[in-house]
């Protein structure tokens, strides 16, 4: 930064009441301010203030979880913008997609980013799972967060699947037809599945009918998938993301060789020890808190 600009900022911007009301700490030039920068920012404080060096290496984390979240945000932003130009009706949907290409400024870029981002997100989520498995990071105490992660992976696929129908072209309609045909075969609940006669299921009252809003992929399906894609599934996903991120921190932060020590931390014996009971000797040393 040029020293002139820096002088200007130092004199006329940083000391102002507005600046100081937003950034309630000094410049991050010393450890205290760097800590405060992370701690006093709602987004950055997803991170701990300090972390072991290996956790900052790309070869350890592959950055797949973070990239998945970034792509989730890309999908949200481009998705909101796309919603301004889209009607989820069988007569209008295809025309709206065409007008994105020919009428809307940067409409095609918007749609491309949304589609490629979605494909990429499926990959990053899969490789996030692969990394977490290969480092054994699902082990105690992170079992539950792994389970949440599996649900998030499933939801990511479902998000991508529901979005696939919305362009309402041949590709969309038939991919969804093939995909939802599986629902015919659900045991008990699909009309072609084993034991479906026990519940008296027909093509017009089984689980596939509930998903499609009809016996074939049509206008009502488009509306259902639109609501699922834009409102219902993102709603569930946001909750699970919150739990996923929260639990990373609560389960001891980024996984690492120190996790084994953390896993030995048995809360019950700790409480008993605090009450002066005999089990004291079995209590493992809690990890150093920084």
């Amino acid at each position, binding site marked *: 930064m040029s020293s002139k600009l820096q002088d200007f900022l130092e004199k006329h911007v940083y000391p102002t009441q507005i600046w100081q009301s937003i950034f309630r700490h000094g410049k991050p030039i010393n450890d205290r301010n*760097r*800590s405060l920068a*992370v701690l006093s920012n709602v987004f*950055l404080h997803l*991170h*701990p*203030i*300090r*972390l*072991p*060096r*290996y956790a*900052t*290496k790309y070869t350890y984390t*592959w*950055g797949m979880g973070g*990239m998945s979240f*970034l*792509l989730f945000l*890309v999908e949200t932003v481009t998705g909101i913008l796309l919603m301004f130009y889209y009607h989820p009706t*069988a007569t209008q949907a295809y025309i709206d*997609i065409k007008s994105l290409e020919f009428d809307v400024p940067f409409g*095609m870029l918007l*749609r491309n980013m949304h589609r*490629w981002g979605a*494909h*990429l997100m*499926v*990959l990053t989520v899969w*490789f996030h799972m692969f*990394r977490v498995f*290969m*480092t*054994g990071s699902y*082990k105690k105490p*992170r*079992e539950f967060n*792994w*389970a949440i992660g*599996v649900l998030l992976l499933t939801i990511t696929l479902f998000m*991508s699947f529901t979005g696939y129908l919305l*362009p309402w*072209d*041949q*590709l969309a*309609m*038939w991919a969804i*037809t*093939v*995909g939802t045909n599986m629902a015919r*075969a*659900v*045991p008990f609940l699909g009309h*072609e*599945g084993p*034991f479906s006669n026990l519940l008296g299921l027909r093509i017009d009252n089984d689980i596939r009918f509930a998903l499609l809003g009809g016996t074939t992929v049509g206008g009502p399906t488009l509306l259902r998938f639109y609501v699922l894609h834009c409102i219902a599934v993102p709603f569930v996903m946001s909750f699970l993301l919150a739990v996923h991120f929260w639990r990373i921190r609560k389960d001891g932060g980024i996984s*690492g060789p120190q*996790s*084994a020590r953390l896993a030995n931390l048995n809360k019950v014996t700790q409480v008993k020890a605090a009450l002066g009971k005999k089990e004291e000797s079995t209590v493992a040393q809690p990890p150093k808190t*920084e």
Partner: protein
Amino acid sequence: MFRWEFFLEIIKKPDNIPIILLIIALIVYTWIALYKAFDNDKRLAEGRPVWEAEPHNQEKVHTWPHLLNIEFIAAIILMAGLTLWSVFLNAPLEEPANPGVTPNPSKAPWYFLGLQEMLVYFDPWIAGVLMPTIIIIGLMAIPYIDTNPKGNGYYCWKDRKFAISVFMFGWFLWMILIVQGTILRGPGWNFFWPGEYWDVHKVVPLVNVNLYELLNIDPKTFWLIREMPALILLGLYFLLIPYIVSKIYRKFYEDLGFARYTVTMILLLLLMSLPIKMILRWTLNLKYILVTPWFNI
């Protein structure tokens, strides 16, 4: 015969680009994971700490700037890459949806093609419903059945041979099925070699037979008697194999306990059932092992 133009026609479909990324990522990240795993194995064998536990790497550093720097750079690269991809390659848009015209082949989105490929070998209620449910539940169950305390939070191979082998087997099976479903399955879901012309008129004779037909049992026999060999085979598969394995690998069984061992074996046998059915189809043209009035396996 291999013809580049036919091969490229399939590869260059915009929605198949993720498959190419997938193949590249599989090679790169499998290599990284195994390289680091073997490196750590060597360190442990020499009595040194694993890479992650080295004093230098255990040192605490500030999130600002050490982590935020690399996150920022990763974000920039990702966004730049995604933007370039979106500028130069348009998302596909075919003719308007028309329920009267069925494209051939009709394919699900690429990430579900593993499931669609399974339909060749299993009925829809298994391939499309049971297997996905088992995959999801099985993945969620991993931390609760893998009680091995070693290998927690660092790459390794020797300490987790069984867990890593099983996971990698399932992972690569899934990926191979997706790649196969995308590139090698053409009209009528028939198999086409890479670079082969996707002929919609290709006729593949259906010569698959059920197990009782292979054994020359009269199809009109009461089904419970007709299917006795199948029931015995399935019984042996799901009961005898776990029993024998528990006797041979007594320590493995005792470490897990009855409940965990049972769940592990059921998941493992279900995972193996797919390649087994695939091989039986290729070698014996086997359609169903078990045929009942309600469902077939």
